[in-house]
């Protein structure tokens, strides 16, 4: 048995490789990026393909195509990426899968590097797709191995839901010998794969039926079990944990020297019989799950009949934020009326040290030139997007008025122009533009909407660690021209401190033009220059 030191993300990647993967697909996003990067690094050794996709929707569809031909596929993204991939994901819940198909999605409770805390488990239940929730790196490995088989046995896509603490924590993982070839060929059932209404009306009940059978699987699978306390502090109280919640509760039990019965859930759909068995004789239960109150909401449905429920909904464990041992200690102590250990705290006020753009970053020079140009042109608003450049919203640049989600800048600027804003500006990176700015720009070009789009072409997807973007330099230029942008108002600048005045003048002239202008600010991210030097 091979033992390896792996991040949770890497454990998923290694398991996929050991499962005889046909292809890895994905779009970068913290904390999921390392799953794909690991798979990319080992692709030729194991003989599968691993190519970053343009966005999460595309990635999912490519993975679905690989599943269609009978090969095992994994698709990786962060939680908000699943919003982008929601259409094919939910449809695949109806159609099902052929070759093993896993969506490995990393949620970010606590929002370490995200705009929300959304919980991907809701997508799984919404799409009637089973979901694994690993608590450890070893489980991340073992569950992924199992998930490929489950996917083929039940002909369903599977969601592997990670959270930041598993994704970005290292531990030693014991690996199993590789799988044999799954023996599947190309799918040949158009009744199943052509989702016409007539077919869908048959497929959807079948999907519901499959989900019921998965519920039975959940009753007996090894990831869901009652863990009775040897010496329960109170037999009428119990704690239900999902995924990493288990880890923190065990730590709290050890520190407080107290314990009660625990129901541990790592695979959904929620098993109703196991749940009923656990709740029998309990007058009060606490839910400890990272993310939204997914299981808690279902149990709360029993209001009046079942035990009292403590969790996120009543604020007992806090409505938001990442779970951690401090919260577990506090909650277990309050839940069981136990004394909390006191620690002497040092109180000092320390200035915050927020992240910022690297010194010498090309974005700084684009924003200073843009700020200069806007000084005499008001009212103006700058709609930006998700990337390193979002930090341009902070002092001293204060160059951004809005940032919502990937690609939003182009559409919002167009909408603002239609709403009469005199100087609407959209600013986004090359990677983000290709992710989901392209289609919005096609609309703006068709209308010749009076707005200015600045594409920050730094040659990479920088924020997530410098993955290749799909088009840069001359190619990006011709893509933009091909969308129908007037060549007279498709400009290029070199964002450099020495060119600040010249760039501000050019941006100003385009702002004054009463039609669509696109300015490509082209200079490489200094981190990839550094990377290339050390490579």
């Amino acid at each position, binding site marked *: 048995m091979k033992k390896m*030191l792996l991040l949770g993300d890497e454990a998923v990647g290694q398991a996929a490789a050991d499962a005889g993967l046909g292809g890895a697909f994905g779009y970068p996003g*913290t*904390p999921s*990026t*390392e799953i794909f990067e690991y798979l990319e690094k080992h692709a030729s050794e194991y003989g599968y393909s691993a190519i970053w996709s343009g966005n999460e929707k595309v990635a999912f569809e490519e993975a679905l195509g690989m599943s269609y031909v009978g090969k095992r596929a994994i698709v990786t993204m962060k939680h908000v990426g699943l919003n982008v991939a929601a259409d094919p994901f939910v449809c695949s819940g109806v159609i099902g899968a052929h070759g093993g198909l896993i969506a490995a999605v990393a949620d970010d409770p606590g929002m*370490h*590097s995200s705009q929300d805390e959304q919980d991907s488990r809701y997508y799984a239940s919404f799409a009637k797709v089973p979901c694994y929730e690993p608590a450890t790196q070893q489980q991340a490995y073992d569950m992924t191995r199992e998930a490929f088989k489950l996917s083929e046995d039940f002909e369903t896509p599977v969601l592997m839901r990670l959270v930041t*603490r*598993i994704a*970005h*924590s*290292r*531990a*030693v993982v014991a690996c199993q010998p590789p799988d044999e070839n799954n023996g599947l060929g190309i799918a040949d059932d158009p009744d199943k794969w052509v989702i016409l209404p007539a077919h869908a009306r048959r497929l959807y009940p079948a999907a519901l039926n499959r989900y019921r059978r998965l519920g039975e699987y959940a009753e007996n699978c090894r990831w869901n079990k009652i863990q009775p306390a040897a010496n329960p502090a109170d037999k009428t109280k119990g704690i239900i944990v999902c995924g*990493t919640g288990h*880890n*923190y509760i*065990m*730590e709290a039990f*050890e*520190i407080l020297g107290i314990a009660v019965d625990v129901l541990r859930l790592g695979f959904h759909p929620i098993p109703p019989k196991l749940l009923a068995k656990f709740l029998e004789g309990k007058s009060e239960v606490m839910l400890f799950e990272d993310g939204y109150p997914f299981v808690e909401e279902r149990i709360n449905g029993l209001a009046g009949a079942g035990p009292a429920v403590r969790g996120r909904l009543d604020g007992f464990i806090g409505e938001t934020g990442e779970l*951690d*041992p*401090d919260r577990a*200690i506090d909650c277990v102590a309050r839940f069981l009326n136990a004394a909390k*250990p006191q*620690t*002497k*705290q*040092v109180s*000092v006020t*320390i*200035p*915050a*040290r*927020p*992240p*910022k*753009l*690297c010194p010498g970053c090309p974005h700084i020079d684009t924003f200073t030139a843009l700020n200069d140009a806007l000084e005499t042109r008001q009212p103006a608003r700058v709609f930006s997007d998700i990337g*390193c450049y979002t*930090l341009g919203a902070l002092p001293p640049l204060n160059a951004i008025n809005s940032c919502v989600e990937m690609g939003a800048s182009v559409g919002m600027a167009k909408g603002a122009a239609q709403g009469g804003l005199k100087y609407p500006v959209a600013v986004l990176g090359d990677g983000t533009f290709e992710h989901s700015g392209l289609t919005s720009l096609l609309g703006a070009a068709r209308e010749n909407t009076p707005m200015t789009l600045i594409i920050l072409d730094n040659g990479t997807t920088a*924020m*997530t*660690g410098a993955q290749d973007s799909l088009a840069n330099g001359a190619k990006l230029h011709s893509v933009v021209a091909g969308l129908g942008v007037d060549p007279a108002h498709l400009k290029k600048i070199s964002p450099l401190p020495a060119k600040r005045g010249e760039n501000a003048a050019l941006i100003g002239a385009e702002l004054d033009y009463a039609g669509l202008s696109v300015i490509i600010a082209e200079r490489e991210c200094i981190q990839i220059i550094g990377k290339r030097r050390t490579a």
Partner: protein
Amino acid sequence: MKKDIILAGVGGQGTIAVAVMIADAAIEQGLNFRQSEVHGMSQRGGAVETQVRLSDKAIHCDLIATGRADLLISLEPLEALRKMNYLSETGTVVTALAPVKNIPDYPAMDTVLDQLRRAGRTVYTIDAEAVAKDAGSTRAQNVAVLGAAADFIGLKPAAIRKGIEKVFAAKGAAVVEMNLRAFDMGREHAAKLEA
């Protein structure tokens, strides 16, 4: 044996690399090991933190509770102060002295040192910048601080040296040698901050 260690620093200083060196050493000695880290936006010159847990028993979770860490290794003095409350009252701090002043309101060094003194923990400091320079490159500052902390980690220094060799192996023998030198010199240059 149980050691809960907080590694603090500023994005780009190499805290994760230090964690991986400790990891390799812990595995070499057959210990259980967990290490959690921060990626993404916070790496861009912001405050970063990596947590390392070593034990000969099962480790329940990837994170350390407040007031329970045994050792705080910081590559920057203000960041040492920021993470102080992770430490138990008997915990030890080992911190580099050179400040990273990429914020406008960085306090005066005397104030920082004074607060470190009054934190009620045993504090060791090291001029990692000078030590690393003497060893051959200021890039080895993180390894010099690791050297200064070596005697508090609870692992054999020889095992940590192996971890260093492994991390730098791909960069060639000269880089490995230089980092081992920084580690050894760091061990000698830790100075107790007298209260």
